[in-house]
């Protein structure tokens, strides 16, 4: 099939960007979206032009690196699918495809479709972890976990931190990401010691990174490639309020204890 691509090109974080139009000719319906872009890039390189910069790593839908908004939808039109797992058979001959980077103040553009998502790392540092004792590994099943809790934690743990929730949210809010982390660890016994600090710290860091506020549009859950349920946001709200009204200031989390 032959396609027309309108791709956002931007040299650097502070240079103005613009859309450039490219023709992708003879695209096989069996290849992935990223392979289609590879083909365009090879041709650009052959013509001595700068290839389109986009991020990718695993190309099997687990690393969350491939960030691009395809025709107005983060990761493209297929539900529960990352851009790297999107196949060209979802498009048809003659389609015009607009490709844009994640758009959020907290995700500044590095180049073309590549954005800086280190804001997510800083949010994780505020509580997206558990404290574990060093020493020999504990028996895997030493701590019993009820099946429903294990399932709920597992569902939230599917988050690959790709940032599609932020990209999809009309407010540029990161609450599905934060909610997924709070819910994932909050459902497990190992997550209890830091539970209060996690909710408070991660939400406050998300605010400090200048992500927007959640107003319950639910676009995030709709475009999450791992189909994280927006109920994790409600769970986070509850954890946050509970932590805020507890009178006692918590003691230091990490450290020699």
């Amino acid at each position: 099939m032959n396609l027309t691509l309108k791709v956002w090109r931007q040299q650097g974080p502070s240079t103005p960007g613009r859309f450039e139009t490219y023709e992708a000719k003879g695209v096989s319906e069996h290849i992935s979206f990223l392979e289609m872009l590879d083909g365009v890039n090879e041709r650009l390189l052959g013509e001595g032009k700068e290839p389109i910069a986009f991020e990718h790593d695993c190309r099997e839908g687990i690393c969350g690196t491939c960030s691009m908004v395809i025709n107005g939808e983060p990761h493209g039109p297929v539900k529960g699918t990352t851009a790297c797992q999107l196949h060209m058979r979802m498009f048809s001959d003659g389609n015009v495809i607009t490709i844009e980077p994640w758009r959020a103040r907290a995700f500044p553009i590095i180049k073309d479709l590549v954005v800086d998502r280190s804001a997510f790392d800083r949010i994780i540092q505020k509580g997206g972890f558990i404290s574990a004792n060093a020493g020999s590994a504990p028996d895997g099943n030493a701590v019993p976990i009820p099946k429903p809790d294990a399932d709920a934690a597992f569902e939230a743990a599917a988050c690959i931190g790709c940032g599609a929730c932020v990209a999809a949210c009309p407010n540029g809010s990161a609450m599905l990401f934060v909610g997924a982390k709070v819910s994932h660890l909050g459902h497990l016994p190992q997550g209890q010691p830091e539970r209060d600090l996690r909710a408070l710290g991660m939400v406050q860091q998300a605010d400090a990174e200048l992500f927007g506020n959640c107003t319950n549009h639910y676009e995030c859950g709709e475009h999450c490639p791992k189909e994280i349920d927006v109920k994790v946001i409600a769970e986070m709200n509850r954890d946050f309020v509970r932590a805020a009204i507890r009178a006692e200031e918590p003691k230091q989390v990490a450290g020699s204890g």
Partner: protein
Amino acid sequence: MSRFTTALGSSIGAKLVMALTGLALLGFVLAHMIGNLQVFAGPEKINAYAHTLQNLGPILWAMRIGLLTIFGLHVWTAFKLWTANKAARPVPYAVVVPSASTYASRTMIWSGFIVLAFIVYHLLHFTLGAVQGDIFQQTREAWTAADGKHPDVYAMIVRGFRSPAVALSYVVAQLLLGLHLSHGVSSVFQTLGFTSPRLACVKKAAGPLVATVIVIGNCSIPLAILLGLVGKGVN
């Protein structure tokens, strides 16, 4: 307390303010509607009700100030969230395909502002008498009760809503309030952290249901008067 106050200033704190003030306002809207539906029971009922409210004295003022504070908090926080959310995406997308969001959810600030404008107009109309001032003055001491002359609220409402422009402006405002609540009331469940799957359908249905009740209840008054079904005795 420091942790509590920083938490209140956070984005979830702001959400909580929106939800709690929104619920309080909804409580007022419902009570106000039930009170006003007494026009269908005739002049005696609604005039006595209005008289009771007027006679509350300091309690009435406490209620007014409380309501104004709650309303102010709701509007101020809404504005704060709205500007912050605009700023979170400085460069808009070229292509936008809304899927899970609704027209109501995307226009909360505009339905809110129109409701705000309506409330100002409504107060100028029936509380201060700046709109349709002649009717307001003529009905002011027109109702004779056992303890003297009082405002004939029934006649004021009936004569006011006989003007199609006035009645229709009320209907339009109620439709926008309904739009606001169709998203808002469902949203409150999520904000306040209701996660039970058994509540999922309640969560979804509550907004449209409450909005429908309020739109029908509140619109029935101007429409019934405009159609001449209520207020035949008033000239």
